[in-house]
């Protein structure tokens, strides 16, 4: 049989060219695997989710009504065609406090009551499900695990919530996973922080409401359908439309019920109003009467006071006159006395000077007497002396006489009697008659004494006589002086007595003056006292008057107040009554205006987790369309080059077969079969691996955000067939193209060796300066590159694809890991957010103390983080945003670094700034100068003109100043959180201790640390690394296949050329370089192109894959480019190393062979 040989031929060809076969196999496996894998990913995501929904009996429809739902509604719903099950439920959003003091914004769901079908069945994780009132199970989600040991914890209703619908305390009996919450995105609510963080299941008995808040429905036949598919949507839409109609009916019934009830209440209220009004009127008229009495009394008092005042003024005048008179009189009296005194003191001075004269004269006289007595005593002394002299002289005379006698006796000469004689005589005597002589010794002594005095008795006698005369004279004079003195003494004494007489007269005059003074003083005191008393009396009167006046004023004030109060009370009563009236009117109007309530019918798409999951699956689908294009392009090129080469090699064989009579179809069939075999094998391998690998990795990566218990990756025959057919068609088309020319030629031509393809000059040769500098081994390379265009494109596209995938892979990692590092490392400089229940917490001394302790908290700033939403332009998403208002505008930049992402230029934040985050600007197509309209938590709307756009990665934020907030929303911003910066090495005593202390403060709701946020984020993005690894492996495989194929073809095609240059003496390395230079050049070109392509691809993937609330980094870091390039080159080098052996094995003998 021809066929057998034919098949044998093919099998042998495969065996003989295994590397070629493998090249096609590998690239097809890659391409189809990638295609099937990425196409299967979104499908598998949906299947996994759908299966989870089915298993957990997720509701298809949810009905809420503006007026609640009644048991009657439920009955009607149950009866409805197409409805499988109905679960009445009480759902409420409220604020719960945990034992630790954490505050949770909670949504409470009720489990289906007894008798109702199973729905949104929770999967128990721990403990048990709630069974009786007050028990609850906590729903754990991706973003919320809260406290670790939930079971046994008690949650209490925040008393400020005033929620009477539920009981006040819940005990956690278990933790569950719920199909209601598959996403980490939190649902919005009007309670608490505005974002639901804690979700609970409880039993309906925990509610005390008289109507249901929601009805959950399952639809017949919906379970079997894919929740994301069109069939499901159609079914649900149909039912939902029916429900809308039913809703109108039921709402009317409910309306009538409510109207009746309201009218009854209104009538009661009207009665109450009327009573209140009459009472108020009576009270007011009483008050008016009282006030008028008071007015009259006050007038009397005013008159009395005026009289009193007049009297007082008169008294004052009298008193003033009295004082004046008193002052004049006393002044006159005093003057007289003063004059008297002046006169007396003049006289006294005269007397005193007279006395002084007398005293001095007396002194003279007394001195005169003393002098006189002294001279008299002197005279007496002189007399005594004279007398003694006389005696002495008389003795001497007697002695002489005796002597003369004696001398005479003895015979001695008589002498003249002189002294000298006497002395000589005596001397002679002594000698003569010593006895006699001795009698005269005395005389001799006397005489000698005289002589010694230079005198002698005779002259002494004469002197005595003169002295006596002088003495007589002195006595006479002394007697005269005494007489004079006595006369003077007499005169003085008479003068003195005269003066004494005058003194006595003056003293009496003085006495008179003293008594006058005394009299005056007494009179003065007397008058003054009288006047003072009068003064005092007057002042008392005045005080009395003033008291009266004050009393009057008080009275007036009191009266005024009374009036005011009356008026106010009256106005108040009037407004209150008017208000009441208004209210009544309004109530009446309201009742009139009560619209027929409305039913809202929600589908699963209205569940945040469900809808975002669906949209993310769509994103994957979008990305899925881009990647396989590469692989298929490359696969086609690989098949084309490979098969072209193969056909060329077997040219003669083709000719022979043609000559033997095989039809072109049969001949081409061989190659087509060859290619098809390689492709199909590749597909089997690729699709099987790809369909498992890619969905698993992608869903794992999405498990950052979604909580699906099980990943399903069912094998899809459709996809497999699609991938296989696409890939095989690609390679077959390429093969056919390769065969085409050979098949058209006549056998004879085919038998001849194909004329070697002529060398061609390339453009570069015209650039002589470059060309002439190139070695011609380089020239060969250059010409070859241009000559084999298919290979060129295959390699460049393949290599660039490889590099692009690597850049994308590394880029994704950069982008995602950026978020954490930049958001919490560079942008936010606060470490802790303290959530407050109330602005008043800022005044709590306990909290203030904690905040001011620098060892705990470096710095803090109170801010309002208001959960709002954008009021979007048509067609744009209504993004949730946080309106960020600092208490102190100028300090916010200390806690958040405002800057542009592209150039890191700081963004100015000030009083007039309105700054939005970059992702928000992108999503809402906003730029600086545009106006943004936002709603705050209280649904108030405000528009702001954007002044700048800042870098930010997590959440959408709007930064405005408190003034701008107040102006915009018409309400003062109430700070609800504190941004805290902690010390570098943590607060003293550890973060936990600080948290506990903070939560211990009253009105602190909870604390969030940026470290927790960033570490939980970091954990989740670990899974991104899977994607990076898959991309690297894919890229490596791509590079490997392409470079392997290129090198393989280059070597086999040029065996002879290579053998020749070996013969010419090229060393092995030179031979290798001869071949590899081409690969290297292509790798370089491919890598360069791939880097550019990678940037584009990365941007595409990041933008498509981004989560709504998060902005991934846009930048790829230099190391990523470097790594991508290095890895690409490494892959290429690796292939070349593998091929090196093949190169060395080329035998030089080949050069001897004839050309093919």
């Amino acid at each position, binding site marked *: 049989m021809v066929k057998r040989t034919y098949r044998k031929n093919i099998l042998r060809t495969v065996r003989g060219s295994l590397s070629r076969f493998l090249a096609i196999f590998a690239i097809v496996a890659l391409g189809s695997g990638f295609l099937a894998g990425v196409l299967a990913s979104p499908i598998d995501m949906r299947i996994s989710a759908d299966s989870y929904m089915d298993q957990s009996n997720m509701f298809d429809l949810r009905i809420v009504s503006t007026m609640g739902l009644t048991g009657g509604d439920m009955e009607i719903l149950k009866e409805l065609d197409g409805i499988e099950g109905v679960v009445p439920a009480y759902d409420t959003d409220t604020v719960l406090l945990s034992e630790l003091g954490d505050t949770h914004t909670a949504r409470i769901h009720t489990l289906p009551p007894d008798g109702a079908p199973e729905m949104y069945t929770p999967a128990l994780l721990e403990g048990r499900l709630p069974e009786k009132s007050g028990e609850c199970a906590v729903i754990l989600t991706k973003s919320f695990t809260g406290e670790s040991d939930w079971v046994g914890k008690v949650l209490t209703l925040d008393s400020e919530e005033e929620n009477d619908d539920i009981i006040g305390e819940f005990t956690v009996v278990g933790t569950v996973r719920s199909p209601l919450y598959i996403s980490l995105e939190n649902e919005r609510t009007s309670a608490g922080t505005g974002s639901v963080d804690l979700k609970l299941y409880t039993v309906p008995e925990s509610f005390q409401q008289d109507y249901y808040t929601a009805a959950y429905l399952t639809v017949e036949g919906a379970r079997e359908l894919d929740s994301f598919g069109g069939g499901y949507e159609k079914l649900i839409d149909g039912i939902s439309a029916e429900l809308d109609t039913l809703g109108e009916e039921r709402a009317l019934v409910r309306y009538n019920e409510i109207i009746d009830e309201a009218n009854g209440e209104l009538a009661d209220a009207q009665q109450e109003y009327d009573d209140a009004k009459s009472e108020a009127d009576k009270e007011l008229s009483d008050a008016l009467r009282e006030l008028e009495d008071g007015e009259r009394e006050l007038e009397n008092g005013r008159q009395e006071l005026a009289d009193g005042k007049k009297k007082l003024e008169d008294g004052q005048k009298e008193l003033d006159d009295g004082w004046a008179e008193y002052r004049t009189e006393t002044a006159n009296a005093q003057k007289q006395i003063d004059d008297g005194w002046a006169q007396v003191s003049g006289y006294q001075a005269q007397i005193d000077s007279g006395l002084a004269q007398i005293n001095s004269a007396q002194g003279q006289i007394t001195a005169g007497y003393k002098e006189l007595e002294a001279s008299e005593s002197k005279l007496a002394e002189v007399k005594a002396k004279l007398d003694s002299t006389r005696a002495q002289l008389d003795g001497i005379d007697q002695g002489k006489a005796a002597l003369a006698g004696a001398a005479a006796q003895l015979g001695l000469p008589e002498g003249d009697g002189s002294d000298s004689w006497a002395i000589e005589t005596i001397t002679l005597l002594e000698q003569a008659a010593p006895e006699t002589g001795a009698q005269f010794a005395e005389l001799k002594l006397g005489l000698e004494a005289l002589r010694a005095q230079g005198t002698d008795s005779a002259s002494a006698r004469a002197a005595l006589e003169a002295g006596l005369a002088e003495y007589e004279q002195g006595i006479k004079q002394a007697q005269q002086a005494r007489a004079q003195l006595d006369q003077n003494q007499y005169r003085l004494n008479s003068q003195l007595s005269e003066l004494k007489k005058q003194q006595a007269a003056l003293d009496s005059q003085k006495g008179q003056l003293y008594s006058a003074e005394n009299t005056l003083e007494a009179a003065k005191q007397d008058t003054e006292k009288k006047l003072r008393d009068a003064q005092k009396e007057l002042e008392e009167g005045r005080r009395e008057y003033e008291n009266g006046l004050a009393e009057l004023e008080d009275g007036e004030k009191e009266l005024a107040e009374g009036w005011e109060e009356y008026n106010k009370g009256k106005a108040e009563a009037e407004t209150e009554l008017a208000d009441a009236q208004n209210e009544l009117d309004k109530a009446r109007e309201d009742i009139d205006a009560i619209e027929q309530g409305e039913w809202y019918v929600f589908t699963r798409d209205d569940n945040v987790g469900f809808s975002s999951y669906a949209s993310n699956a769509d994103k994957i689908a979008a990305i899925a369309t881009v990647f396989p294009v590469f692989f298929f392009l490359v696969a086609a090129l690989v098949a084309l080059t490979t098969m072209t080469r193969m056909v060329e090699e077997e040219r003669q064989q083709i000719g022979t077969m043609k000559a033997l009579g095989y039809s072109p179809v049969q001949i081409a069939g061989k190659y087509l079969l060859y290619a098809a075999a390689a492709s199909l094998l590749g597909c089997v391998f690729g699709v099987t691996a790809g369909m498992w690998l890619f969905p698993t990795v992608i869903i794992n990566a999405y498990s950052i955000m979604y909580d699906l218990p099980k990943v399903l990756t069912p094998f899809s025959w459709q996809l497999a067939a699609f991938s296989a057919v696409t890939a095989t068609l690609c390679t077959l088309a390429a093969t056919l193209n390769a065969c085409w020319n050979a098949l058209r030629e006549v056998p004879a031509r085919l038998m001849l060796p194909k004329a070697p393809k002529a*060398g061609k000059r390339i453009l570069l040769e015209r650039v002589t300066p470059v060309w002439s500098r190139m070695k011609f081994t380089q020239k060969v390379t250059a010409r070859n590159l241009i000559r084999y265009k298919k290979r060129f494109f295959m390699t460049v596209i393949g290599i660039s694809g490889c590099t692009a995938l690597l850049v994308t892979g590394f880029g994704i990692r950069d982008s995602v890991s950026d978020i954490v590092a930049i958001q919490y490392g560079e942008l936010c400089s606060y470490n802790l957010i303290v959530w407050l229940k109330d602005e008043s917490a800022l005044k709590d001394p306990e909290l203030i103390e904690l905040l001011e302790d620098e060892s705990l908290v470096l710095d803090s700033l109170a801010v309002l983080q208001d959960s709002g939403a954008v009021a979007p332009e048509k067609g744009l998403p209504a993004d949730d945003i946080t309106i960020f208002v600092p208490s102190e505008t100028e300090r916010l930049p200390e806690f958040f670094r405002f800057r542009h992402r592209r150039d890191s230029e700081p963004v100015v934040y000030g009083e007039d700034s309105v700054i939005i985050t970059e992702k928000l600007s992108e999503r809402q197509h906003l730029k600086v100068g545009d106006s943004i309209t936002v709603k705050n938590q209280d649904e108030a709307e405000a528009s702001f003109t954007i002044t700048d756009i800042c870098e930010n990665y997590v959440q959408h934020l709007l930064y405005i100043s408190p003034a701008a907030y107040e102006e915009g929303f018409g309400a003062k911003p109430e700070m609800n959180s504190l941004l805290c910066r902690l010390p570098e090495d943590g607060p003293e005593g550890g973060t936990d201790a600080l948290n506990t202390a903070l939560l211990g403060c009253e009105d602190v709701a909870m604390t969030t640390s940026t470290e927790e946020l960033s570490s939980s984020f970091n954990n989740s993005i670990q899974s991104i690394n899977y994607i990076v690894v898959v991309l690297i492996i894919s890229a490596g495989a791509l590079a490997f296949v392409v470079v392997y194929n290129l090198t393989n073809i280059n070597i086999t095609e040029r065996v002879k050329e290579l053998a020749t240059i070996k013969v*010419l003496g*090229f060393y092995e390395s030179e031979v290798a370089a001869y071949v590899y230079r081409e690969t290297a050049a292509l790798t370089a070109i491919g890598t360069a192109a791939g880097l550019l392509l990678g940037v584009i691809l990365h941007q595409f993937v990041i933008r498509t894959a981004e989560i709504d609330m998060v902005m991934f980094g846009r930048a790829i870091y230099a190391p990523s480019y470097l790594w991508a390039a290095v890895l690409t080159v490494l892959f290429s080098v690796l292939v070349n190393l593998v091929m090196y052996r093949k190169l060395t094995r080329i035998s030089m003998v080949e050069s001897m062979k004839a050309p093919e």
Partner: protein
Amino acid sequence: MSFIEFDNVCKYYTMGETRIAAADHISFFAERGEFCVIVGPSGAGKTTVLNMLGGMDTCDEGRIILDGREISGYNPRQLTAYRRLEVGFVFQFYNLVQNLTALENVELASEICPDPLDARKTLEGVGLGDRLQNFPAQLSGGEQQRVSIARALAKNPKILLCDEPTGALDYNTGKAVLGLLQDTCRRTGRTVLVITHNGALTAMADRVIRIKSGRAISNEVNQNPIPVEEIEW
């Protein structure tokens, strides 16, 4: 000692179970400057001899000596250097690199030698002064073989080895090529060794070595070599 010396050289090929001796204790010699023709029928071992002499293959036994050096003892790298520096090779099918011009093909060889001849002049020497920039595909067979010879010569080798240089050429062109080789030998005094199965060529050789079944059966010196133009076959 002779310029070229083969001393009991053996080369075996194993084909499955059997071992074939392509060279079976072959011994011969040739002198410097000779135009030497090795002639023998297909499968006699001519190419094996040429491969071994040209350093493309190694012998299993015996010694091969060229210009006093024992090539048979060379390792692969030494052999490459030997081919590079001392041997010029002319192939039956020219083996030109299609993607290089005539001139570049010559330069391909001359570039790797330390002391090459000028490529352009060498091409002029073989009569292709006006075809320097042509690609091989644009040249006739004879012209291509001339380029091949020029490529071998440009390396300035000690010995020129030619493997059936006229095998792919028509009669006249073949003659012209042989003439060029003979002329080269005479003019430059370079040793030229031509392998052929064409016995007629022995007339133009200085030395004729006949090989049969892997052995040299004769080694004669032709006293009166005649110019190739005068030979008819």
